[in-house]
């Protein structure tokens, strides 16, 4: 058993998921590649979305990969941080909007 759940070098082994199940891995990687191509959104816009989602998903591999991708694309620190704030705002909002449920229950059950 590894001493740590996360090892930065494991990111390079991502493709090895095909060793255990090649067909689904192939479909996934083909899909992944298609998703990030230029489309209605630019590859640059998709990279920033991926960076933001990497944070909300708290995936260290993805944060590593999409920070590097952002640097390569010349995306600056302010742009990266604003993207993360968008993720944080949605995450925070998603938490807070659930408080309406808490408030509803409190109001219903209180005199």
């Amino acid at each position: 058993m590894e001493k740590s759940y996360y090892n930065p070098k494991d990111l390079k082994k991502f493709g090895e998921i095909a060793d255990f199940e090649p067909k689904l891995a192939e479909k996934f990687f083909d899909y992944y590649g298609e998703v990030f191509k230029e489309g209605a959104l630019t590859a640059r816009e998709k990279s920033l979305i991926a960076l933001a989602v990497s944070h909300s998903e708290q995936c260290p591999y993805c944060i590593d990969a999409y920070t590097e991708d952002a640097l390569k694309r010349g995306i600056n620190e302010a742009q990266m941080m604003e993207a993360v704030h968008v993720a944080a705002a949605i995450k925070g909002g998603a938490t807070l909007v659930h408080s309406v449920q808490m408030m509803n229950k409190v109001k219903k059950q209180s005199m």
Partner: protein
Amino acid sequence: MIKSLKASGNKLAMIENQLKVLAGEPFKTELPTFVDKLKPINQFPLKPNKLEIFQINLGYMCNQVCKHCHVDAGPDRKEIMTKDHLERCIEILKANNIPTVDLTGGAPEMNPLFRWFVEELTNIGVQEIIVRSNLTIIRANKKHYDLPEFFKKHNVHVVSSLPYYQAGKTDAQRGDGVFAKSIKALQSLNDVGYGIEGSDLILDLVYNPTGAFLPGDQMELEAEFKKNLKNDFDIDFHALFAITNIPISRFLDYLVASDNYEEYMEKLVMAFNPAAVDGVMCKNTISVDWDGYMYDCDFNQQLDMKVADKSTQHINDFNIEKLAARTILINQHCYGCTAGAGSSCQGTVA
């Protein structure tokens, strides 16, 4: 202002120490050497194509001390090309049909014979004269203020470094205040017609990553630079060359000191693109140092890897047939030119 590696007594100022780093890990055990990569694609030994670019380093003196500089240039460097060597270069260019002369440094404009030399190049009818200008030299001293007019008069192709379209990243790599002076210099070049769409006065920019990462897509970066420089400073330019930082000299020092060296080399190796090998600049370029010695490229110059044929290592012994038959010298730093879309003094190659 920081000092050059040489002036500060840094151990990497000694070329043998740079070569030791390049010969060590991760290439001893983990990663393939550059030779290992060239052999299976039948590119070893690497051979040149027709000589098209005669790149002359006019001296290592520079008014800037950029953190990534592969030349280790700076105000404290005194190596400068003398008139006898410049005259010999003219003779070589007269006698051989080499279409492009690429003047670099240091700041080539700091060589006192720079203007005389450009005039001579014009007189002998060189097809294209490239000057790699750091931009700030144009604003460094009143005597240089008219450089844009001088470039225009000689139809010089100006290639200038600008690692970002904002001050923070640019100054972090090139020194405090460099961005503001670079912007003024670019505006003065635009004022005489450089960089304007449709203009014959070509102004290209060079983008180097401001850290231990590889450049992204050249077209995408160019579009971002064009949009932001136009919006913020009304600056126009023609093309952006995205150039990979080569792991030698001051950039190597930065990689080692910041504990990024092995990871950076791994990125270069992982990004090795066989299709980029055909376009590497050492195949069509000869690089000449301030002292008249010749190299396969400017990077080999800084590692003192003179062209392999000992009978034609100096411009006084220039022999175009022998140079055409030479084997290009390579080392692990060459991975910098074959990563991704490839990298050369003219940008991507694949």
